[in-house]
């Protein structure tokens, strides 16, 4: 039985694949261009980054089929996890994400990053999503490394 399964799987995997060109340009690509950066934080002093900050906002570029629809949504941490259970709170407001149909930082439509945003791709295939936020280290912030995961979901709404 196991041999048969392996044989079927091998035949299945060995079948020819259509080249990328055969997809007729129907592809989706999400690329992290610039990560959200809070700059030189000091203990007890919040770090605030606006989504229109060209140097520090997070940016993802999206290539999607024209004349379609995509849904963009973030899954965001509420803190950066550090040593011995220490954390730096992170907050994201209702307008801390922005969608730009032409990838310009000034052409954003703001949206709540946790709720998401549905965009018609129109004739343009390239768009961008920007992210701002706020980090609030405490006055006695413990030394060490602090990490968190930011996830951007891009769904082809079809």
């Amino acid at each position: 039985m196991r041999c048969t399964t392996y044989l079927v799987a091998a035949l299945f995997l060995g079948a020819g694949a259509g080249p990328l060109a055969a997809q007729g340009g129907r592809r989706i690509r999400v690329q992290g261009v610039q990560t959200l950066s809070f700059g030189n934080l000091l203990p007890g002093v919040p770090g605030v980054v606006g989504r229109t900050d060209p140097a520090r906002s997070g940016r993802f570029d999206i290539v999607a089929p024209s004349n379609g629809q995509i849904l963009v949504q973030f899954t965001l941490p509420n803190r950066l996890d550090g040593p011995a259970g220490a954390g730096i709170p992170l907050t994201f407001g209702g307008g801390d994400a922005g969608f730009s149909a032409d990838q310009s930082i000034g052409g954003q439509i703001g949206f709540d990053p946790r709720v998401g945003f549905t965009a018609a791709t129109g004739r343009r295939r390239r768009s961008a999503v920007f992210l701002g936020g706020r980090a609030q280290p405490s006055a006695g912030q413990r030394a060490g490394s602090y990490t968190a995961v930011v996830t951007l979901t891009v769904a082809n709404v079809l």
Partner: protein
Amino acid sequence: MSLRTLVLAIALLAPVPALAQGVLVAPTAVFIDSRSRAGSLLLVNPNDDPAEVDMSALFGYPVTDSLGQTQLFTAEQPDSAEPSAAGWIKIFPRRMTLAPKGQQTVRVLVSPPPTAADGEYWTRLVIVARGGKLPVTVVDSANTAGLSVGLTMEVRTIIPLFFRKGKAEAGLAVSALRANRAADSLLVRARLERTGNAAALGTARGEMVDSTGKVRATFNMPVAVYHAIEPRFSIAAANLPPGRYRLRFEVAAARQDLPAESVLPFRAVRDSVSLTLP
């Protein structure tokens, strides 16, 4: 300010690039019929760093909320009445590391139960790409030397998969067409309900016709009707003079973002309503 702090501050003024996040996925929708029961997609890592990729299947489809905005409904354990193919999907390989500039063909095999009725079944393919941990901020002060902050970035790409068994037919009904002016736009809504045993993939078109019969404004939007939705369409109305208009609305089985052979035909549905713009 110490020399070390000054150097850090200068370094942090520059944009921080992201590393190896996201892969290219093609095509953007997978259609599989019961004769082949298999399909494929291509993942490409265009980055200069390796990308770790996980794939899975999740049941879901687009819905609209009370404001007519599109959301993606998903369910780990869908209702038994839902035409879910999520439990029938096998993905080869499910996990992979894509080398820089590398690519991987992923095979999808559908194994429906023999008792499955004719019709269309749905799932979503979820492609998660992980980059490395990114140093985004260094906290440095006289009190807390040695603090560092980093974000790990993930990108999830979700594409639909349609499995069609036997006779799959699309059909659509339209009702409750209405429109309201909001600022410089006209917001159009209509109820769209699937009548076949497959999702209706089409394009909604609308046009504002004035009292002389001249078309003064239009919209054109893709729609996907899995059960019933009430989407919202927007027409730029800033330049529409006051007066009486006829709003004509149509949904037809045509999509510019999909291969024509993947779109099941259905009879176009139409409706219209009279409006007076103040």
